[in-house]
């Protein structure tokens, strides 16, 4: 074997490594105006192609989803019909309770956190690497979207807007490894932070050691921190285990939303209750 390296090659390598390190430093220090502009440009270039692919792919994806879910839907339909009968019976009673609740909330000065104004957006692109869980959506600053706006679906929390251009935005999903969501366990009121794990599950952390957590417990946003509105479904406790080298229990959640299969989302544009 002979050497393919030369002084010129080594100089190029050193120059590029230093340049990459400089870019990382600028980005982590938050002083990357040029980087943000480059990101915006990259999104602007790729977004039309992403929209086109999303538009072509959506009908096929839906057809395959429908055919795969046909028997599941039939069973679910039968179950829902039974539930519907029971629920109708409960509606009258719940209306009474709701009216009473509203009166009490008004008296106590509570805000209604669930009155969210949202705008529907299409998911036109997903993460080009395995290491981030992000999606590009079809709305941007010209549509009234702001950075850190919450993104949800009817099933639960999706994430927040982290990068904006005029016509598109990048959403960081809550299963991204850099994501942290302040949450509350509905049954007990215990609070903690949900972190992303990239493999489709979420980890519940920083929860009190004596907190009563059971499999199946519903976890919702607590509203602490101000990024996400209160009460949005995050997931259910799926696995609780002791870890060998930590006092903290390993609590894994099954997310309410399948982040990598989303085709439409809702972006929260206003939270008038707050």
């Amino acid at each position: 074997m002979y050497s393919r390296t030369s002084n010129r090659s080594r100089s190029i390598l050193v120059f590029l490594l230093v340049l990459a390190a400089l870019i990382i430093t600028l980005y982590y220090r938050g002083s990357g105006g040029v980087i943000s502009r480059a990101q915006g440009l990259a999104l602007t270039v790729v977004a039309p192609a992403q929209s086109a692919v999303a538009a072509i792919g959506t009908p096929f994806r839906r057809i395959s989803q429908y055919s795969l879910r046909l028997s599941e839907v039939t069973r679910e339909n039968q179950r829902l019909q039974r539930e519907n009968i029971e629920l109708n019976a409960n509606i009258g009673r719940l209306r009474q309770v709701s009216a009473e609740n509203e009166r009490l909330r008004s008296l106590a000065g509570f805000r209604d956190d669930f009155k969210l104004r949202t705008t529907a957006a299409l998911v036109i692109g997903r993460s080009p690497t395995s290491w981030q869980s992000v999606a590009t959506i079809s709305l941007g600053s010209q549509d009234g979207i702001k950075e850190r706006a919450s993104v949800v679906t009817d099933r639960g929390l999706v994430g927040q807007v982290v990068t904006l251009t005029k016509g598109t935005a990048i959403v960081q999903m809550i299963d991204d490894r850099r994501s942290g969501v302040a949450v509350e366990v509905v049954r007990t009121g215990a609070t903690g932070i949900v972190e992303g794990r990239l493999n489709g599950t979420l980890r519940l952390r920083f929860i009190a050691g004596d907190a009563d957590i059971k499999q199946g417990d519903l976890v919702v946003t607590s509203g602490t921190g101000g990024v996400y509105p209160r009460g949005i479904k995050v997931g259910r406790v799926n696995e609780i285990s002791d870890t060998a080298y930590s006092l903290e229990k390993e609590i894994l959640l099954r997310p309410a939303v399948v982040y990598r299969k989303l085709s439409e989302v809702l972006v929260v544009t206003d939270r008038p209750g707050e």
Partner: protein
Amino acid sequence: MRADLRFPLILFTTWVVQATIVPSVAFGAVQPDLLLVVVVVSAVLRGPAFGAVAGFSAGLLQDLLAPGSIGVGALVKTAVGYSVGTIDRTLLGDNVLLPVALIALVSMGHQGAYLGVLFLSGEGIDFVTFALKIILPSAAYTAAVGLALFPVLGRWLGGNQAERSVELS
């Protein structure tokens, strides 16, 4: 078309495909890294300097669409491009499986290095989980795609004898 124009065109097209079509054939977080295949082929055919430039460009383009760690992909792919470029091309011969094995190994090294840089920058990384659930399957997926792409890219990017002879001198 001159070889000098072929590379940017292939890089740009691969970048668009990586951002548009590849995520829809992903299994969870596991997806092939087409840009890595382009970097490996470029480096094998044109040597370490070209490999480093190809790696830097590909990594930076990928980083721009995945906010959170901009520059990390550029850093790691630069090192990958240079390292692969130092391998004697004749060692790979006409065997298709050797380049594919190389892509699998490089993919594992690339992702391990990526995680290492993130770890050094202060992120909590669960190496075992990432290795089993993302690095190994992604390397296999990238190698499988590389099996189909390597000969095609080799034909498109090959033939720049003048540049290679400079590298070899």
